[in-house]
């Protein structure tokens, strides 16, 4: 399935496994229900990722995170936004691996997905065929600055920019008696 990151189309180094049999796969994504078994079989040098359903409480995933290089969150429909909150919670507990949104997202959600902590979006063929990469990149840049603090960099945050402007103004007025 086509894969995108913030810069556009990207090759996928990961292989999906239907079950826990991942013996010859260097980087395998396994379904949540086979994760424990797959980790038992993990060999040195092998990377393991997991595909979780979007109704999984992230507390149940947390104990596994230190051993995972990728977490893919299933989006059964673009209109189902649970994955955005799961992503936030997974990042909050310190997961630094790849976070992937997997499902029929639309280009207009790209910026939101990146802001919530996703690195990549994995699309079904039909969605990707209708929405070329340029649309995703254009949609990503729809808003140059946004209002919510803690989603993305302070540079792109309006409240943080206002604060910086206040600090600058205070420094200027202090410097000119």
């Amino acid at each position, binding site marked *: 399935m086509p894969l995108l990151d913030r810069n556009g189309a990207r090759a996928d180094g990961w292989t999906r496994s239907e079950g826990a049999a991942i013996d010859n796969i260097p980087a395998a994504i396994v379904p949540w229900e086979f994760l424990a078994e797959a980790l038992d079989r993990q060999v040195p040098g092998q990377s393991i990722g997991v595909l979780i359903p979007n109704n999984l409480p992230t507390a149940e995933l947390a104990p596994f995170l230190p051993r995972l290089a990728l977490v893919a969150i299933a989006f059964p429909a673009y209109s189902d*936004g649970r994955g955005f909150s799961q992503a936030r919670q997974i990042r909050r507990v310190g997961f630094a691996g790849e976070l992937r949104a997997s499902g029929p997202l639309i280009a207009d959600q790209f910026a939101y997905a990146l802001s919530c902590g996703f690195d990549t979006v994995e699309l079904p063929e039909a969605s990707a065929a209708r929405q070329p990469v340029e649309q995703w990149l254009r949609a990503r840049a729809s808003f140059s600055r946004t209002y919510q603090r803690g989603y993305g960099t302070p540079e792109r945050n309006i409240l943080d920019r206002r604060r910086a402007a206040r600090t600058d103004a205070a420094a200027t007025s202090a410097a000119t008696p």
Partner: protein
Amino acid sequence: MYRYDEFDEHFVRERVAQFADQVSRRLDGSLTEDEFKPLRLKNGVYLQLHAYMLRIAVPYGTLNSRQLRRLALIGEKYDRGYGHFTTRQNLQFNWPKLRDIPEILGLLADVEMHCIQTSGNCIRNVTADHFAGVAQDEIEDPRPTAELIRQWSSAHPEFSYLPRKFKIAVTGAEADRAVIKAHDIGLRLRRHPDTHETCYEVSVGGGLGRTPMIGKVVRDYLPKKDLLAYLEAIMRVYNLEGRRDNKYKARVKILVHEIGAEEFARRVEAEFAQLDGPSINADPEEVARIAAYFAPPAYETLPAVSNTLEAAKASNPAFARWVEVNTAPHKVPGYTALTISLKPIGQAPGDASSEQMRVVADLAQRYSFDELRVTHAQNLVLPHVRQRDLFAIWQKLGEAGLAEANIGLVTDIIACPGLDYCALATARSIPIAQAIQQRFANEARQREIGPLGIKISGCINACGHHHVGHIGILGLEKRGIESYQITLGGDATENAAIGEILGPGLAAEDVPDAIERIVAVYLAERAEGESFIDNVRRIGLAPFKAAFQETTRAAA
């Protein structure tokens, strides 16, 4: 009132460009109608029965004259010369063309307005007390809070694909004029009894629609500085756990109901405890920056009672009645908060022509520090009027057909557009409102009846707030014809209550008779000075049900 800074301005301009791009991707097939629909809804564009509809945000119901004139212009140039003010303090145009909407959005952006999140499964336009800043019973002005939430909720990366729509209302007064208990989140500014600091009482899980619920308090005293982090915690719990299997069970009220308010509050507090408040909340300087825009205007020092007003009242009884019914006490001596009725007898409730909008804009500029408000009851307010100017205003309003003296009375009916416009409606609302108004048109009789709120919805979604009407009317379809269900005892105030159904549905032509019989019971049974709703509470539904059954029998 709030004014955009360069960041707000840029944000809204980018939103306009984004929507124009979304429309072109719809037209070239990149987006299917199913994908485009939520995108257009998040920008207030519906497809209704006869045409598209554009819902323009009036954040917490506050407008200046320039903005209202711009709405008048858009109504004339792109619509049919009128607009409709809604129960969420917004304005709707009924006939715009999709091809014109990007241009309309540009015209709105010129006057610091937008259509952001006036529909869709996201955090909707935040509403507030229409007497904010002027009410005598106010503890603190709710508008700075509402503006902070407006900004925080705009294009929220995490909460734009919620299970269902999400409505927030704020009040800072003792009397609830913002129906906060019928909102997904209701915020009430109040003083902490020990520290005397202003805090928020946070209610969650109110809402009307198919399963009406009154909101439950989940936090008695939330420190003001924690607001955004606490809202984030509520929204995250809802986004993760709200039901998505059934549209009618997807509002947060159902989650709160199913797991209980205590368990919901526990989950919110657990999430809140995980959050780093200082990295999420607006800093105190930002809160102060916003609040400064809502500083009181430069009021004159005036005597508490205007002799000019008293003399005009004495010589003109019609004017005196209008003043008595349509004005509310103001915190500053010599001033009054004037409500302009958009319910002239026989007109569609909440509709205003472009000419009328211009008249009101002129009056706001000349007599009300350039400010006006939209109420959830679909009327307009001039919040800062000198008492001595009332007569001149009344004359101008009279020329424009806007001097109806009926605020809070039986003809001040809330009604959704219903099946005359709305694709979701199951029956018409406007003709029912018109028929009741005609029946009770006599002014003396209206005043004799006193405060009585009738609210009409044309479908179960309850945009007309029928559940919280003293008398509620719900239009449904029954065997191929329009049928109207009557409820009694609802209350939209701080004593919020859901009305109870009186009996079987009625045909449209029998509704005014039914209302007449209900009112007759009240007039016969009321104690000295007892209002309609107090009377219903005291004597119970039984006498009203008995009278209602006579209507059904007479109709059979």
